[in-house]
């Protein structure tokens, strides 16, 4: 490699790094606008349940921050390894196709390792032993109704694992059960060993094996995430209870990685029993009332019977555009500020009407109600998650305070309200 070319690149890199560091330190904030402790106190209040909620909220913030830091450490470790070990050898090689091939192989390994390690660390840190049950009407082609699963999954990161249960009439998910796919996953991984054996002649045995290991790890992490998103845990009439119990126990023991909402599908004969078991086990229930079918109506009635309203979040699909929503919020704010018009009901009339025949107004008044947006992408999910997270944290705190009152030794000392005050 010509020396002047390396020098030119080094000067450019140094200048860019210098500019970035200058920008970073010039815009650096010495103090955040509000500490997390202040935010928690403002959000949840000073009651025992509020303090518990603040502790859970801070724990979630800590987990998210640690996952980010660990991901960054993994990234820089891999980059340092890539520069010091294969990078140095590459510079010493003769220029030509072999050098290009090896360089691209090592770039692939480095990027794959970074992505996989970050995915593994984040997936592990985001997993918490709490369960959120999503109840909704499943529709195959109405993709907008599937948004709620993504939104709740975004809100539950570092807090809980969301699950949802379909009856066998719904054909929207993958036809193969997720539990079966996981059992047979070893075969393609074993067969893929043939690839590094064939490639060893061209790029060497260590490079070929590294490519294979990184590829397998990436496929395992992201394949798992994709399968959990698209696939379902299936079971027949005789084994549904075992499969459901197995999944719940796995969540409670923090097995596997966090991969969004997990779906289950059971035959019609046992579907209602499965829903009842899940409602009893869940720490919080999210009900999508955008489209109330007969099955959803039964689910709502069952939730009213089995779950205290302080742990129920009722959501609906908000058909307004962002501008309309901001206008409505501003009108409400103005009504509260100047008292020039009555404060409007935030729940649309058709949602109130759909729920009026199903649950009592007292029960509905004690539930939490939240709309979700049309956007399918991450931006919409983040907007919903910002509010839904605080709501879910309150629900978990409510359950934990109740549990603590009933069984004082159940909770770990790390999340007690006393620790927050110190």
């Amino acid at each position, binding site marked *: 490699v010509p020396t002047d070319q390396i020098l030119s690149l080094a000067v450019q890199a140094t200048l860019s790094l210098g500019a970035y560091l200058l920008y970073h330190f010039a815009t650096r*904030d010495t103090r955040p*606008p509000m500490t997390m402790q202040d935010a928690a106190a403002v959000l949840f209040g000073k009651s025992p349940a509020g303090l518990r909620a603040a502790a859970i909220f801070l724990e979630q913030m800590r987990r998210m921050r640690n996952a980010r830091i660990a991901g960054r450490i993994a990234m820089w470790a891999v980059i340092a390894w890539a520069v010091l070990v294969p990078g140095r050898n590459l510079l010493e090689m003769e220029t030509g196709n072999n050098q290009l091939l090896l360089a691209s192989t090592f770039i692939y390994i480095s990027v794959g390792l970074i992505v996989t390690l970050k995915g593994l660390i984040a997936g592990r840190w985001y997993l918490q032993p709490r369960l959120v049950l999503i109840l909704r009407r499943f529709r195959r082609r109405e993709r907008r109704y599937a948004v709620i699963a993504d939104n709740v999954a975004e809100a539950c990161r570092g807090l809980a694992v969301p699950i949802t249960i379909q009856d066998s009439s719904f054909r929207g998910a993958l036809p193969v059960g997720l539990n079966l796919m996981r059992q047979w996953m070893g075969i393609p991984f074993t067969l893929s060993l043939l690839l590094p054996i064939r490639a060893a002649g061209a790029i060497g045995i260590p490079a070929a094996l590294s490519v294979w290991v990184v590829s397998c790890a990436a496929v395992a992490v992201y394949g798992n995430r994709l399968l959990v998103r698209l696939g379902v845990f299936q079971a027949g009439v005789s084994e549904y209870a075992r499969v459901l119990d197995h999944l719940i126990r796995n969540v409670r023991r923090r097995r596997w990685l966090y991969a969004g909402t997990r779906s289950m599908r059971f035959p019609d004969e046992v579907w209602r029993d499965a829903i009842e078991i899940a409602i009893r086990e869940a720490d919080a229930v999210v009900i999508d009332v955008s489209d109330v079918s007969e099955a959803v109506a039964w689910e709502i009635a069952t939730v009213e019977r089995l779950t205290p309203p302080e742990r129920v979040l009722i959501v609906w699909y908000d058909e307004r555009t962002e501008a309309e*929503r901001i*206008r409505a919020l*501003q009108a409400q704010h103005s009504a509260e*500020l100047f008292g020039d018009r009555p404060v409007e009901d935030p729940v649309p009339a058709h949602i109130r009407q759909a729920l009026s025949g199903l649950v009592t107004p007292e029960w509905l008044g004690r539930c939490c109600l939240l709309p979700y947006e049309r956007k399918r992408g991450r931006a919409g999910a983040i907007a919903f998650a910002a509010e839904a997270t605080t709501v879910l944290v309150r629900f978990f705190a409510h359950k934990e305070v109740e549990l603590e009152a009933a069984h004082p030794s159940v909770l770990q000392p790390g999340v007690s309200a006393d620790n927050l005050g110190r």
Partner: protein
Amino acid sequence: MTNLLVREAYPRSWLLHSRRSLCAIPIFSLYFGALGGAGALELGWVDDAIFGAFMGALFVVMFAGAVWPVTVRITDGLYYGNEDYSGPVPSGSFEYRLVCALTRKFPYSVGGVLYLGRGRVIFIAHRKNWRPDRYTIDFGPSAGFTIARRERPSQWYLRWLHRPEGYLEFRSPSATAQVYVPTPDAAFEALQKALDKLASQDLPARAN
């Protein structure tokens, strides 16, 4: 002291910058293309074009990604009244506040907070501004303070690039300024109501 606009009216998303980012891509692409073609990398014209386009897009995406969290943090700090961002609250009694950007010399605007009280209306530029821009504009008593809604600029490039939604104009015997807020219609309505309320509070005080 209450904010006149809801927090949701102020953008949280980096998409706010997307139009400007789109315009910046060809500019930075040309810059990096010129850098590549000037002999530093000895690239051919095809490679140079690809390199320039790629680096321009990458630079803008990274820059937008670095800038918007800072923008959101400053807006949060201003909105919730953190004095590290907004500076100390001016002396006197103020009932309302409005986070906005004020222009004394077009097109350069400075972010800050407008405080509205019966005795005084005052704009204070936020503390994250460049030091010479951390100015204060005293509009005097609220009785002499008027606002007007101005339509969007006539130039097509300013309309597309800069402020498509128009702006407000503040006038008082002591000062005049153009003010940018994300929802000028809502801000105009809220400001008008606030001024009416302040005036109605003022009347009994004068009668006494």
